[in-house]
C-alpha cells in the first residue's frame, strides 16, 4: 500500500527552502499571467469562487427578467420567445456556472487544508479544469446573440423541442456543455486523487471532516453521471446535424429515451449540488455549538446511502410520461426511501445543537437557516414522491418552489455559510459583523418571500415556464417578484462584505472561531500560499 503513495516531503524540505525555491527557482509570473498559469490550490479556489459569484449575478439578472415579466398578468416587458431563453439560461447558468463551481472552489481551498495536504494531487490539471469554465460559459452566453436566439427549451432541454424544433444556436449550447462537463470530470478526478492519496499521516478515512467526505462521494457521482450527460447531448448533436433519429419519433426514435438518459444524469446531479452543502453545515454547526458533531459515522453512511439511492430514483421526474405501473411504483418507493437518510442528517444536526453552547455568528446564522429551509424543501420533496399526488404537482410552481427551496435557501445558503466561515482563513480578517447580519436577514426575508408563495400558486394550478398567467395567480406572483428583487439586491451586500473583508477589518487569529477543530485552523490566517509542506501532526478525534 505504502509504495503506491506519492513520496512524502523529507524533513530537510522545510518551509523556508520550499518558499525560497518557489521564489528563486522560477520567478512567479505577475498580473494576468499569474492567474492564467497558477497551479496553487488556493489561487485556483479563489478563481472558482470569483467565477461562480460572477455567474451567480448573471444568472440572477436573468431570473429578475423572468420575475419582472411575471410581476403582473399580461405580456409587458419581453416576448415569450425571449422569456423562454431567460428561464433556460437562468437554470443552466445557476446549475453549471454558479452552484457547482462554487462547491469546487470551496473544495479547492479547503480539502487540502482539511486533510493536511500541500496542494491538490494534480495541480496542472486543476488549472486546466478551471480555465475550461470561462470558455464554456462565454460560449453559452454568446448564443443569446446568435440568430434565432439562445437555448429556449428549459434547462432540462427535452427533445424534440431541443432538437428538431430548436434554434440553430443549440449546437453551440451542446459544445459549451461538453466543455463544462469535461471541467467537472477533471475536477472530480483531482479531488478523489487528493483525498485518497494526500491525507496527513495517521488520518484514516473515518477521521476526515465531513466536508471532505461529502466531496469525495460527490466526486464519484460526478464521474459516474457527467459522461451520461455527454452521451445524451452527443445524441442530440447527431439528431440535429447528422440526420440520426435517436429522439425523433418520425424517424423511429424515442423522445422518452431522452428523458430517461437526462434524468439518469440529472438526479445524481441535484445531489451533487447538495451533498457538499451537508458537509459545510456539518462543519459549522459543531463549531458554533462548541460540541462535536452528533453521529459522525451515521452522517457518512447517510451521505453514501443518498448517493447510491440517487441512481435509483430518476424516473420520479417522469411520473406523467406514461410509465408502466410497476415502474411508477418502484420509483415512488425508492424516492420515499431518500427521506430516511436525509432525515438522519437533519436529526443529527439538531442533536448536535442539543445541550451545546450556541452562539450566532454569521456562518451559524446561514447554517441554521439552511437547516430550516432545506427541511422545508425536503418536505415538499416527500410530497412530490407520492406518485398519484405528483400527477397534480408535476410541472407546476409547486415543483419550482420545491427545487428552489433545496437549491437557494438550501445549497446557496450553505455556500454563503461556508464563505462567512472561511473568509477569516482566506483573508485574515473577520467579515464586517453588521453588514453580514443585514445580508443574512434581508436574504432570509427575500428568499422566503420569493419562493414560499410558489407552493400556493402551484397547488392552485399555475404551470411552470409560462410568461403569462391567469388572474387568480396574480397575488402570489406579485409577492414572489418583490421577494426576488429584495433577495437579488441584498446579494450586493455580500459583495460589499467580501471587498471590505479582503481590504481590512478585525484581524483573525489562526483559529478564527472558538469551537473550530479541523486542520485548517492550525495554519495562520490568512493562509499563506504554501501550507503543510511538511505533513501536520494529526491527532484523530477518536470518532
Amino acid at each position, binding site marked *: 500500500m505504502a509504495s503506491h503513495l506519492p513520496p512524502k516531503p523529507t524533513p530537510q524540505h522545510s518551509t523556508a527552502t520550499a518558499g525560497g525555491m518557489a521564489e528563486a527557482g522560477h520567478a512567479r509570473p505577475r498580473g494576468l499571467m499569474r492567474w492564467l498559469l497558477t497551479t496553487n490550490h488556493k489561487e485556483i479556489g479563489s478563481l472558482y469562487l470569483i467565477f461562480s459569484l460572477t455567474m451567480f449575478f448573471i444568472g440572477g439578472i436573468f431570473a429578475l427578467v423572468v420575475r419582472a415579466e411575471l410581476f403582473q*398578468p*399580461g*405580456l409587458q416587458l419581453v416576448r*415569450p420567445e425571449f422569456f*423562454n431563453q431567460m428561464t433556460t439560461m437562468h437554470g443552466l447558468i445557476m446549475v453549471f456556472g454558479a452552484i457547482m463551481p462554487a462547491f469546487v472552489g470551496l473544495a479547492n481551498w479547503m480539502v487540502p487544508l482539511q486533510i493536511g495536504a500541500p496542494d491538490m494531487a494534480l495541480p496542472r490539471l486543476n488549472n486546466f479544469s478551471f480555465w475550461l469554465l470561462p470558455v464554456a460559459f462565454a460560449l453559452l452566453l454568446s448564443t443569446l446573440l446568435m440568430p*434565432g436566439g439562445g437555448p*429556449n*427549451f*428549459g434547462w432540462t432541454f427535452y427533445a*424534440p*423541442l431541443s432538437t428538431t*424544433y430548436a*434554434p440553430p444556436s443549440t449546437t453551440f449550447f451542446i459544445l459549451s456543455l461538453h466543455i463544462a462537463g469535461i471541467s467537472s470530470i477533471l475536477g472530480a478526478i483531482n479531488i478523489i486523487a487528493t483525498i485518497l492519496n494526500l491525507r496527513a499521516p495517521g488520518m484514516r478515512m473515518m477521521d476526515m471532516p465531513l466536508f471532505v467526505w461529502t466531496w469525495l462521494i460527490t466526486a464519484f457521482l460526478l464521474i459516474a453521471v457527467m459522461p451520461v450527460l455527454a452521451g445524451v447531448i452527443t445524441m442530440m448533436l447527431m439528431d440535429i446535424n447528422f440526420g440520426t433519429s435517436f429522439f425523433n*419519433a418520425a424517424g423511429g*426514435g424515442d*423522445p*422518452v429515451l431522452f428523458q430517461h438518459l437526462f434524468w439518469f444524469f440529472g438526479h445524481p446531479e441535484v445531489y451533487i449540488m447538495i451533498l457538499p452543502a451537508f458537509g459545510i453545515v456539518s462543519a459549522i454547526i459543531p463549531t458554533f*455549538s462548541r*460540541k*462535536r458533531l*452528533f*453521529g459522525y*459515522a*451515521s452522517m457518512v453512511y447517510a451521505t453514501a446511502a443518498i448517493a447510491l439511492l440517487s441512481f435509483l430514483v430518476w424516473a420520479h421526474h417522469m411520473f*406523467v*410520461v406514461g410509465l408502466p*405501473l410497476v415502474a*411508477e411504483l418502484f420509483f*415512488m*418507493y425508492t424516492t*420515499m426511501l431518500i*427521506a*430516511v437518510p436525509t*432525515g*438522519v442528517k437533519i*436529526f443529527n444536526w439538531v442533536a448536535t445543537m*442539543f*445541550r*451545546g*453552547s*450556541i452562539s450566532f455568528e454569521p456562518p451559524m446564522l446561514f447554517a*441554521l437557516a439552511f437547516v*430550516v429551509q432545506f427541511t422545508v424543501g425536503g418536505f415538499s420533496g*416527500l*410530497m412530490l414522491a*407520492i406518485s*398519484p*399526488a405528483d*400527477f*397534480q404537482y408535476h*410541472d*407546476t410552481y409547486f415543483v419550482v418552489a420545491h427545487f428552489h427551496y433545496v437549491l437557494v435557501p438550501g445549497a446557496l445558503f450553505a455556500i454563503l455559510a461556508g464563505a462567512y466561515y472561511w473568509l477569516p482563513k482566506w483573508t485574515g480578517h473577520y467579515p464586517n459583523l453588521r453588514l453580514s447580519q443585514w445580508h443574512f436577514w434581508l436574504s432570509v426575508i427575500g428568499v422566503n418571500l420569493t419562493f414560499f408563495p410558489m407552493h400556493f400558486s402551484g*397547488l392552485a*394550478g399555475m*404551470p411552470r415556464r*409560462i*410568461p403569462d*398567467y*391567469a*388572474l387568480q395567480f396574480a397575488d402570489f406572483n406579485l409577492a414572489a417578484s418583490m421577494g426576488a428583487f429584495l433577495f437579488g439586491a441584498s446579494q450586493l451586500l455580500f459583495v460589499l462584505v467580501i471587498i471590505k473583508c479582503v481590504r481590512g477589518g478585525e484581524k483573525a487569529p489562526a483559529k478564527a472561531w472558538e469551537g473550530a477543530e479541523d486542520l485548517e485552523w492550525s495554519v495562520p490566517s490568512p493562509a499563506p500560499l504554501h501550507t503543510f509542506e511538511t505533513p501536520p501532526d494529526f491527532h484523530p478525534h477518536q470518532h
Partner: protein
Amino acid sequence: MRTLLAWIAGGLTSVVLTPVALADGWNMPVGVTAISRDIYSLHMIIFWICVVIGVIVFGAMFYSLFRYRHSRGAKAATFHEHTSVEVIWTAIPLLILVGMAVPATATLKNMYDTSEADLDIMVTGQQWRWRYEYLGEDVAFTSNLGTPREQINGTGEKGEYYLLEVDEPLVLPVGQKVRLLLTSDDVIHSWWVPDLAVKQDAIPGFVNENWVRIEEPGIYRGQCTELCGKDHAFMPVVVEAVKPERFDEWLAERKEAAAQEASSADREWAMDELMERGQQVYGSLCASCHQEDGQGIGNFPALAGNEAMLDDVDWHIDRVVNGVSGTAMASFRNTLSAVEIAAVVTYERNAWGNESGDSVQPSEIAERLADQGE
C-alpha cells in the same frame, strides 16, 4: 433575540397554516372525480405528516437554540453518538413511509385502470392548440385559446377566464368512463385539468392513456404543463361536462355540421367568402407563428411578400397540407377541412399586400387530398 425568534416561529407557523384555513385558491382543488378526491386526501395526509415532523424537529431545534445559548453561559455537553436514538429515528420515518405507500399504491392502481371505457377521445397536442377526436363518432375539432390578443398585450381589459378560455371546449358526458388517448404532432405537451386530476404527457410517436369519470356537470379549466415552445402559456384546456342526454344532442349537432362542411366543399366559393373564412382560420392557427400581419418572427418566415409562396400555388398548398419536416411547420391534412385549407391559402395569397388574385377552390383541395390519400 428572544422576541425575534418568537416572531420568526410565529410567522412560519402562520405562513404554513393559513392556506389550510383559506383552502380555496391556495390549495389543491378537491375536484369532481373519485380519483381527484383520493389524490387530494393523499396530499393532505402527507402534508399533515410533514407539519407534525416539522413542529417536532423545528421545536427541538429552536428550543436548543434558545436554551443552550453561549451568551447565557451554557456549557457544552460531550456526547456525540447514541446508537438506540439513531436506530429509532431511522426506523420511525421508515414506518411512516410504509404507512403512506399503502394508500398511494391503491390510488395509483386505480388511476392506471383504463379498461371498459364508455367513450374514447383522442387528444392530440399541436403547437399551440389541442385537437380532440371522438373515436368512432366522426367528430373532431381543434380547441384554440379564446382570449383575444389585446388582453394579453394589455390594450384590452382582462376577462374573468383570462388565458383559461377556448373557442371550442371538449364536451364530455358526466357519469361515463371516458378514456383519453394522448399523443402529439410535434413536441411534447401535457394535458392537465386540476379538477379532474388528470395530467398526462402527449408525446410524438406514443399514445398515452388516462381516464376520467366526471361526477358533476360544469366547466373545468386547465393548461398545457410541458414546455412546448413560445406559446406554451397560451394553450389552455377547457372541459365542459354535461348530462348524457345533452351530450348525445351535442354529438348529433356536431355530426350534422361536419357533414355540411364536407358537402360545401363541392360548391363554388366566392373570393369574399374564402377571404373571410381564411382570415378566421389564419387567426386561430397560423397567426401565433407567422403573426397577424404576416411578417413572421424569429425562425418563423414572413408570408407577406414571400416570393416562393406567391410564385407557386401548388408549392404553397403542399406546405399547408403536408407541413415541412424538421421544422415547426405542421401538417394540416388532418386538422383542417378542404374548405378551410382552400380558404386559408386564398387568404394568405391575397392579404397584407400579397396580390396574387388567386382563389383556390375547396373542390380542388378535396380532389388533391383524395389523390394523396390513395
